[in-house]
């Protein structure tokens, strides 16, 4: 039997793409789907997915859980657990379009939830922590249930298939987001499992990633000390947890987080002015196990913005395009040209140089 995702570590190559409006204009999913078409050969049909920000304005105060269930009994078991900790505000099917390219679908639900105050008081944790713990518990312990998105006013959509087919399957042209990210996967050996597709999400953080990191086990063994459980054994999963740990739990800024994950080389740090040198040295000293090595280009989506980051040696391609209020990011320039045919301003960030894009305050 071929082992499932999570039972074995599976390397994969990939394509990524993203678009964001700095003015917070909401755009449907058509363009981002199209952007994946020219990069078709970077995926192999074993996983594609999207993350969209700003899509549930009418439910923006609730956590939107997107969940795969193998069958009805898994769904019942999971909902029973959820009801112990959360009020269920809405529980619905995620609408899909049946197409021949996408098969073997699980039950796909969207559940808007609100944490019960009594539970938070009892456990003495904040609501984000409750969401994280519950999602980790469902994913690690409930066989046949898998929460693949759990942020507010955002959501991930993913499946086994080529990304452009996955986009059409989920009818993404019907959603409006100020920020879209997309991913096409080229795993080297995996039986199709929907949960294994990307993006990988935790709260409002979503990660799409292209690469195979060599620091994986060092990162995993560190982050698992802090209650995370790397059940999928994928790079994307561990990078998402690292982002959550550094940004939410440690309170680092995005720039500081980038300086941990893709730390500048000592030769660069040692040549910096004293204050900066101290800061970078401190971060490398305190979080050595969260340095990520090996090739990667990642796009980290979050509420109100995104950050693109390459590994320190820039072993994976990634280009940025800017036009008016729009910023585009992709593995290949061709993808950007699909989204913005007349674009002039296209450039490649250096290895380890974070590109941070924020939507205007109040516009999301």
């Amino acid at each position, binding site marked *: 039997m071929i082992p499932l995702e999570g039972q074995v570590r599976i390397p994969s190559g990939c394509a990524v793409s993203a678009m964001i409006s700095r003015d917070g204009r909401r755009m449907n999913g058509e363009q981002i789907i199209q952007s994946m078409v020219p990069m078709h050969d970077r995926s192999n049909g074993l996983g594609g997915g999207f993350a969209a920000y700003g899509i549930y304005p009418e439910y923006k105060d609730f956590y939107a859980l997107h969940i795969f269930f193998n069958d009805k009994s898994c769904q019942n078991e999971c909902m029973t657990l959820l009801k112990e900790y959360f009020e269920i505000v809405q529980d619905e099917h995620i609408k899909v379009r049946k197409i021949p390219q996408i098969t073997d679908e699980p039950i796909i639900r969207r559940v808007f939830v609100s944490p019960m105050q009594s539970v938070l008081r009892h456990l003495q944790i904040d609501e984000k922590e409750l969401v994280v713990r519950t999602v980790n518990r469902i994913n690690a312990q409930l066989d046949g249930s898998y929460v693949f998105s759990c942020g507010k006013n955002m959501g991930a959509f993913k499946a086994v298939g080529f990304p452009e087919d996955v986009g059409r399957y989920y009818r993404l042209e019907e959603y409006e987001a100020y920020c879209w990210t997309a991913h096409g996967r080229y795993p080297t050996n995996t039986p199709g499992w929907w949960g294994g597709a990307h993006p990988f999400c935790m709260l409002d953080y979503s990660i799409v990633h292209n690469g195979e990191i060599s*620091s994986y086990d060092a990162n995993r063994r560190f982050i698992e000390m802090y209650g995370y459980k790397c059940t999928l054994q994928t790079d994307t999963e561990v990078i998402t947890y690292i982002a959550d740990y550094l940004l939410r739990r440690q309170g680092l800024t995005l720039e500081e987080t980038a300086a941990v994950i893709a730390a500048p080389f000592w030769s660069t740090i040692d040549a910096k002015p004293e204050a900066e040198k101290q800061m970078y040295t401190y971060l490398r000293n305190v979080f050595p196990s969260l340095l990520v090595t090996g090739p990667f280009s990642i796009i980290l989506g979050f509420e109100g913005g995104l950050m693109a980051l390459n590994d320190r*040696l820039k072993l994976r391609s990634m280009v940025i395009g800017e036009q008016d209020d729009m910023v585009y990011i992709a593995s290949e320039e061709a993808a950007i040209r699909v989204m913005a045919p007349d674009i002039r301003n296209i450039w490649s960030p250096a290895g380890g140089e974070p590109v941070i894009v924020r939507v205007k305050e109040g516009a999301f």
Partner: protein
Amino acid sequence: MNFYPEFEVVRNDSRCIRCRVCERQCANEVHWYDADGKVMLSDESKCVNCQRCVTLCPTRALKIVKSDCRLRENANYSDQTIKEIYRQAETGGVLLSSMGNPNPLPVYWDKILINASQVTNPPIDPLREPMETRVFLGKKPEHITRNADGTLNTQLAPQLTLSMPVMFSAMSYGSISYNAHASLARAASALGICYNTGEGGLHEDFYKYGKNTIVQVASGRFGVHKDYLEAGAAIEIKMGQGAKPGIGGHLPGTKAVGDVAKTRMIPEGSDAISPAPHHDIYSIEDLRQLVYSLKEATEYRLPVIVKVAAVHNIAAIASGIARSGADIIAIDGFRGGTGAAPTRIRDNDGIPIEPALAAVDKRLRDEGIRNNVSIVCGGSVRSASDVVKAIALGADACYIATAACLAMGCHLCRSCHTGKCNWGIATQRPDLVKRLNPDIGSQRLINLMDAWRHEIKELMGGMGINSIEALRGNRLMLRGVGLTEKELEILGIAHAGE
């Protein structure tokens, strides 16, 4: 009881030019010149096979071979076992040995293989790309804090900064010579790493290498005073040593001469016997008190290392140490060397470093306190690949001592306890000490570490890793060969082919 000697001196008389170098060089007085017969003779019963004469004979007239005259073969009662019984029956004494356990017990390093990148991610070429080996040892904070202006508060508990994850392990001035200490101190300082004073205090000439010195506090407290504590970059409390867990040290009075006695602050010629336990530490809370006394004494400027031998419940012991306020734990495996130890203890006590290290790293992570302490492992780290394997199992850095001695000229004859080291290392006889030139000794240590650093970088580059911190605890980079399920489970690695 007399036996045929263990070694034979084979001299090719047609090559021998009667220069008498071998005679002058042998502190064991094996060779002499017979003026009547105009011939070199030897008493092989005194030979320890240190290879000094072989190396210096100008005409390659000499070789030392293992004698084939043995007692009748017996797989249970080996030649050595029988002779040890004879010796004890004769003397009633405890057998003494030196250097590490030579018996054919498993060397796990040799059953662990390292990964390399192919196709799905690229190897990195250390000649063309930066490849980083700098490490910091010490406690990391649970949470970052910020200054009033929002910038990061970069104050940290004291850290030890090393240019590469290798340090010279404790060898006391007394057990080894002034020139050996000078070589280690100079090399450590040129390399940006640390050497360790061991329990014999710090000679006043070497205070200037303080930034690269770890000063040790052992159960005998020899040579410990305020200036000594403040002189180093870190303080190490020696609770145990891999070669002789559960017992203290013993420097024979013959070695406690001149500056050695002065540095240890003991009368000249007296045996320096450090007790088995620290008599102020009978439990973990006592250790905490000593850790904090030393921190108080040095105004919390220096990290404190607690060194323990790898023994059966090492994981629980390390967990206790990690909560004792110590900044660094040094674990010493049972193959570690010694200047002198009872043979039975050296050869039978303790456990190998590899499973000990793996168990400690795992336990500290399971308890969520791995960040409280750094882990240094020693007890037979022989090469750059052993270092890489140790780091991937979870160590922050390695301690080496035998390999460092070899670099200085040691030929592993295992006779350090006799005080007659022909290579000028484990001796205090001035005529022998001067054979080790600190200029050459330090340069050879620097060369060895440079070579290892290059090899570590190449191994890392092969794995697609360009900084040592991404290797630490990265057990996915290791595979076992010929190990049982249980051994793999303890080492936390998969078998080759998995």
